[in-house]
């Protein structure tokens, strides 16, 4: 189509509203966050905001709660994503069959993905209760003692991860399953004709062909796991000690329970930097599929 003046006007009308909105609510806030982070800025005190230089950033390096929250976040992301990937991958192969009824089961298993995370946290909190939780009832069925799922440091982290795994494994299964279904049969037949064993076919053909799907699912899960806050809010509030105090939770409580917006702002900036670095991978891997085609 030719690019007339009218077309330029049409393009402007189509594109500018969304871009303006994103500039206002995505770009401007980044600069504003930097501005805030260079100030002592508290809501709860009559003191007006005042310039603080790099004070807040200096404090971050000294703050063991902040450093702890980084490692807790990393631990959570690793545990949750690894488990989801391994389970989801295996399950995709289980469902990858034309057996009767399997399709219905697969669809049913997808329900957790769209549930409100706050309610997911709520129900797992309830089920994992030390004194009346149904999970502990199962535990006692096996003759064991009730477990302090939410008050033991290690168990609390695993409990949060469990809730996340419950919600997101079906998603991983779905994506890998869909990718499996879209693989052309002829490559496998070619492999067989070349005399490859089934195991060799899996390692040399199936897995490399699934690689893009695995990368995408990893990245999507990583984006969401890094920002997870609902489960911590409902299940542990960051405790015991600081065992489940992920970065988003520490940032949120600093900003909106202690109302230390300046300090929370500096954490936000650090978080944006970390995520941006991570996003580079995304841009290379999937946002530019034309290059790979």
């Amino acid at each position, binding site marked *: 189509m030719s690019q007339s003046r009218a077309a330029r006007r049409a393009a402007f009308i189509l594109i500018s509203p969304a871009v303006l909105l994103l500039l206002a609510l995505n770009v401007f806030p980044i600069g504003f966050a930097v501005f805030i982070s260079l100030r*002592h800025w*508290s*809501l*709860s*005190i*009559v*003191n007006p905001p005042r310039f*603080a230089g790099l004070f807040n950033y200096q*404090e971050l390096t*000294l*703050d*063991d*709660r902040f450093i702890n929250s980084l490692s807790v976040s990393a631990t959570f992301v690793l545990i949750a994503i690894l488990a989801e990937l391994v389970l989801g991958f295996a399950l995709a192969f289980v469902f990858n069959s034309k057996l009767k009824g399997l399709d219905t089961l697969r669809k049913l298993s997808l329900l957790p993905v769209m549930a409100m995370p706050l309610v997911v946290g709520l129900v797992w909190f309830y089920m994992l209760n*030390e*004194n*009346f939780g149904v999970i502990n009832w199962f535990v006692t069925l096996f003759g064991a003692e009730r477990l*302090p799922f*939410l*008050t033991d*440091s290690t168990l609390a982290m695993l409990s949060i991860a469990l809730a996340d795994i419950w919600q997101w494994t079906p998603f991983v299964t779905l994506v890998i399953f869909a990718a499996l279904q879209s693989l052309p049969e002829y490559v496998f037949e070619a492999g067989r004709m070349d005399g490859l064993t089934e195991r060799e076919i899996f390692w040399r053909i199936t897995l490399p062909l699934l690689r893009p799907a695995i990368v995408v699912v990893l990245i999507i899960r990583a984006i969401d796991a890094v920002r997870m806050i609902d489960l911590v809010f409902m299940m542990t*509030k*960051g*405790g*015991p*000690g*600081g*065992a489940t105090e992920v970065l988003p939770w520490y940032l949120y*409580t600093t900003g*909106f*329970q*202690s*109302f*230390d917006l300046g300090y929370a702002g500096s954490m936000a900036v650090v978080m944006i930097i970390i995520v941006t670095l991570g996003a580079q991978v995304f841009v290379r891997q999937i946002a530019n599929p034309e290059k790979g085609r």
Partner: protein
Amino acid sequence: MFRKMMKENIRGAACILGATCLAFGASIPAHAQGVLDGKTIRILGIGDPVFQVMQQIHGDLEEIAGGEIQLDVRPFDVLHQQVLLNAQNDLSNYDLIAVDLPQFGEYRPFLTNLNPLIEENDYDGSDFHDVAWNGAQFGGNQLGVPLQPHPEIFAYRTDVFEKYGLDAPRTHDDVLAAAKTIEENEADMSGVCWNAARGTPIGQSFIMTQGDFGAAPIDMVKVGDDFDMGNIQPENMKPTIDTAEGEATLNYFLALLEVSPPGILNMAWDERVRVFAQGGCAMTYIWSGRSAIYELDEDAPARGNVGYVSHPSGPDSPNRSTLGGWYLSIPTNIDPDRVDLAWNVIEWLTSPEMIAEYTKHGNCVAPRKSVSADPEVIARCPVIPHVNQMAEDGFLQGWQRPPVPEIQKIVDVLGAESHQVLTGDKSVKDALASAQRLIDREMRKAQYY
């Protein structure tokens, strides 16, 4: 044990849910009839007994007031957050907010001075106990009216103590010794229930326990056994956490941990009393108003078998209990047309008749002299004369949680650091040093020094 306890919780809930609770109405003061006059009052409250009672009798309250009562009841931290967020609005979302005694320092800039309303309406505050009424006075301005002011005291099971020949605990050592005896002899009963949950619960436990050792969280001027709160200067804002008293506090916590029930690291205000009520522990720290949880429950083993003392103290320190609890205040950003309505509702909800009414449904607090002398009220709430006696003896103080603007920050820091000591992730020394540094940082940021 626990199952039964939970069933008890539920009975209370059934009432709240409006299924079975309608026994209310006759004793409502006539002058309150139609206080709302078809309007709606919006109240931001706390999940504490007095507001839970209001929820319970909500339908009746609306009927009497002749209007709608929108009552949002929030947990402690959410309430604090919502009050501060609400202060950011051009126009307040609420006509009345619940303020905890030590929070007045922080909230002062956005609370309406009630003096003009008090004068205009000839309101007489002298029926309130002096400590309760004066607690909300800052620079001569009355910023709130007492609704549920009460102290955190110490409750113990008299029947169990008698069985093992134990005396009422007056010191930390008494508490630990009694707890040990009981744990050794009673299979299902632990020693002490207390606030050990992360955050505000254990943060407040810290400063109140530090008070047991005769120390305040900041460097205030000591007058006799107590501190001068009337004249806090910037140099008094220096934290005093990394001290011998701070260390003693954490060591006491570690000792308590040995004699606490399961799940203690998640236990806070409500749960500790419920466990105590059902016999899960022989002693508990308790905000006196919550004693209704077992006093009104005919099936609770603790009912009628509880003795009260003020906070047991550390060595060579006097017995002191922290005064706190809830006041009704009017935010400054309220729609000016609604101020009179808000004030009328305050008058109504804090009237002697209403305060007496709350005691029937689960709130054992009587901030008014006329109510606390009422024999019927005392029969329902045996804790009330104990609290009055403590007040008379000068045992109830507020300096453990001085109402400075930074009090919640102090509590937040202590709430995170102390919990790490209890989970074994941090040594006592490290936690104290770190807490001291973080609070000092807050004070410097607020430019006190």
